[in-house]
């Protein structure tokens, strides 16, 4: 029983570290798209591990926590996709370090041919 609590605490700590990296990423990344990358997704593994750690400390909750993790896995990509799509749609500029933007190239071609 005590071992499980220690393992759960360590897993929660690792999860919290990933959320910290996500926060640092939010500050350091140059434009909105890279911030979405750092902010929404380093936190996916972070929140999954944090919840899993709590589940290990309280084994009765484990099944419900697995359900929570599944909901995070379903809702997280949808929200970050919608944010990114909306940002590109209203033409938020990409950072100067961006190599290529195939989507803008293709959309320009469509509007020119109309």
């Amino acid at each position, binding site marked *: 029983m005590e071992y499980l609590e220690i393992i759960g605490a360590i897993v929660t700590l690792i999860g919290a570290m990933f959320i910290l990296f996500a926060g*640092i990423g939010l500050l350091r990344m*140059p434009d909105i798209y890279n911030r979405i990358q750092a902010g929404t*997704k380093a936190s996916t593994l972070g929140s999954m591990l944090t919840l899993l750690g709590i589940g290990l400390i309280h084994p009765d909750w484990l099944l419900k926590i697995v*359900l929570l993790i599944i909901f995070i896995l379903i809702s997280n*990509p*949808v929200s970050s*996709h919608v944010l990114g799509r909306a940002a590109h749609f209203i033409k938020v500029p990409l950072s100067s370090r961006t190599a290529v933007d195939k*989507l803008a190239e293709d959309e320009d071609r469509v509007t020119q041919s109309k």
Partner: protein
Amino acid sequence: MKFKGIFVVFVMLLAIWLVLNNTLQMAPLLIGAGVSLLLSVVLCTKCSVFNDIRLTPKTFYYTLVYLGVFIVELVKSNFDIAMRVLNPALPINPGIIKAETILKSKMARLILANSITLTPGTFTIDIKENILYIHCVHIDGDNTEKYAQSIVRKFEKYLEVLYG
């Protein structure tokens, strides 16, 4: 073949209900089964999203393999992004690239796009027919076409077996 979609949704709803209740007593089980059946019939008689799933023993095996591959990718790319964020030089080479998929069914494309979005470093901005536009934090090498194919191919080969 609308029954398959209804059946899949019914099983999913009932499983979630049972996990939330955490019991196998008769009364909650019957109520859950009744409500799940009603909901799945009402919601899924016109929806065709789940009809592409192939229900064979092979499906379960490949679903497990897919989950394994996905979790390994998730952990790997999380470490990759963490390293890039903590590196003082911030070694990124971002860009939006174009990848074609061979998957036909809507559900399979949805899962592919969500898997790409969930692995950090890449996220799907838009899907047009069979073309995915993916934003990458770091594009490896000069050949963007080849890199785009390598991202899609990782998940595609398993989803192809599941959905065709």
